[in-house]
């Protein structure tokens, strides 16, 4: 299993976390969303169209683009909000990461459950800082904006590489590749994962936990 992995390191104020992470993830999702497939036969389908929306950030001088889909926006927002609250809570040591993972399902024979194989992972690693005064805050606002510009450029660069993306399946297997739960768009299957432990290697522990959890779930 060798999924592509991208890690972004960002440092900012707590208030900016939601918007910064949303910017990155929505940009990725915008590229990873297709129109809804309408099958006319098992192998024949027509594809719906994807609308887009400009979203202005409140705490960062930035505008990002996302798919015009309330349900998708809501899902992304909720996941990021959970992470952000945890990161900014009193128990947190001000550092954490959240990842957006694209995966495809693989059917297993009866006793085993479906297997999820990630093929692309986008991780944002965050360190929180606190500003002493308004000047610093303003400066940071601009810095974060520049930083996000850089990240969006990087994302588009990666998206236009001819990297692996799962093949478009036949109708019966569509759910193994795409998330068909949205009424207006059809992104590749994705999920969010986060951790807010301040340790230097959170990913390793997290990965272990995940493996154990998955094993138990079986």
């Amino acid at each position, binding site marked *: 299993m060798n999924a592509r992995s991208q890690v972004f390191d960002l440092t900012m104020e707590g208030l900016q976390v939601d918007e910064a992470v949303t910017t990155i993830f929505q940009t990725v999702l915008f590229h990873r969303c297709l129109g809804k497939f309408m099958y006319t036969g098992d192998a024949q389908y027509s594809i719906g*169209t994807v609308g887009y929306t400009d979203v202005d950030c409140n705490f960062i001088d930035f505008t990002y683009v996302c798919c015009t889909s309330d349900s998708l926006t809501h899902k992304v927002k909720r996941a990021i909000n959970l992470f952000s609250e945890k990161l900014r809570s009193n128990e947190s040591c001000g550092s954490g990461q959240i990842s957006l993972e694209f995966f495809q399902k693989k059917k297993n024979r009866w006793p085993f459950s479906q297997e999820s194989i990630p093929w692309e992972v986008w991780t944002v690693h965050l360190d929180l800082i606190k500003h002493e005064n308004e000047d610093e805050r303003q400066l940071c606002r601009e810095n974060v904006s520049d930083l996000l510009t850089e990240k969006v450029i990087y994302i588009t660069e990666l998206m236009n590489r001819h990297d692996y993306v799962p093949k478009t399946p036949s109708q019966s297997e569509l759910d193994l590749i795409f998330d068909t739960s949205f009424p207006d*768009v059809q992104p590749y299957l994705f999920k969010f994962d986060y951790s807010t432990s301040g340790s230097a290697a959170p990913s390793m522990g997290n990965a272990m936990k995940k493996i154990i959890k998955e094993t138990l779930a079986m």
Partner: protein
Amino acid sequence: MSAAQRLNAAEKDLEKFIKFLALKSTQVVVQSRLGEKIQTQCNPLAGNDWFNIVVQDHPEVMEETKRALALKPSESILQRLPLCVEISLKTTEGDQMVLEVWSLDLLQPAANGTTANGGATNARDDSKADINGINGESQTLKASHAIYSRMGIMLKSLISLTRTTPAYKLSRRQCPESYGIFYRIYVDRPKVHTLGEGHKNVKIGQLHTIVGSLVMSVAYRTKMTISPTTAQAHQTENNIIMLKSDHFRPATDASSPNTQQMQTHATAVAKKLGLGGLNAALGSGERRCIDIEKPLRPGAFTDMGKLRQYTEDDFVLPETPPFEWLLRGRQRHESTGSGCSVESLNRLDNVASVVSNNMNNNNNHTANNFNHSQNLNNNSTGFKSFEKQQATNGGANSFSPIKSLLIPATAYRHHSEPALEPPPDDDNLLKELHFPFASPTSHVNDLAKFYRECYHAPPLRGLNELQAEISSSSSSTTPASSSSVAACGPTAAAAAVATSAADASALDDLSRQLEQFETSLEDYDKLVSQFGLTGSSSSGSRSSGGLQMSN
């Protein structure tokens, strides 16, 4: 279907895709700079939008793009790339700054390394074809489908990136009171040099296809400080301040009954200078006009004939020898026609002409007198040739009858053969040869005299007789002492053209001698004698007459 046909069909598809990618790209870029947030709705029920992305089409942008592409029905878009969208900012003060250039280009197939990527694409296409389980025909279709979806991603990247460059923020903040954002669509290499120092290049995406490698990229400005001088400095360094070629015409055209006499004269001479300018422009090819006269608008009673348009050449400071520019005018005269000598002399006039009203009136008066006599001398062929000249100029000015004064000047080239036709009258032009600010005692006056004498070769004897007639006829009507002056003019000028070839050889000598003359008056006298001006007496009187008028 044969393989070749299939390939051809695939290419056709591809061309169509590229065309629509180009059309949609310009829409995306321009719409993102309108200063408003955009929201388009998804259409899950298979909308007709290209690349499955809902991008509204602004008819104006569409029109602009199509105009820029200028595709003929049979023409392929592949030949019309790169297509660029330039976004610029213009302040209410008129300062302009190019912010970014978005471009869609097609690199030729030889230049791309498609081995790895192309392989991956093919694998994908094949698998898709397998899924569909249809015949070979759809395989080609599927290949184009892969390209289609890749183009969709490219377009999405474009949409995302248009929101990140500095121009986006500027466009969102634009308001009519401070600045506006403008776009320009063109088919050319992206003009990135307009983006200033330190501009950034970002490649949005690259797509390898059978017709070449499609590249979408943006170059944007990073230094946003707008300094009012940058535009000017840029212009002056290239010397491309454009001067309205008809800068003085509104004044000359607006003739009132009171000033008509003066102005008709002025029109004629101005036109003459224009002709000279045109000839010179045709000769040297690249002389451009520079507008330093704008602040120096001519005064109410200025003789428009003394004003001229400045060209680059005028801004070359005279180097050694000190008055070489006088000779330069001469050189131009020889190469481009007789009109330019006046130009070079009048160079000195620009300041003085404003204050030389008296002189102008004088001038016009005498000039008008000679018009009568001179009209008799005009031959019709000369008139025609002038008309033709004027037609080629595209001059919309209607000319007073006095314009015919100038026929001889343009016809001189035909007269350069030693034919003893009635000499064309050139008095008006000679009037222009005076130096308005040169008082009889000034040094420049001497120089002017000298120049005139050198400039005009001795008149032919036959012509002298003719000139006597003219002078006698004109002296009866002219109050001033200018009759002889004017009379000598045409013959001298005609002779100058006739002997221009001989003068050319002496040109180098002249420059050297001029230099000598500056230091020594004796040298000057010697020089005059050296040129052996047999008609020196008549020339002398002519110039003194001219000087009287100028004072």
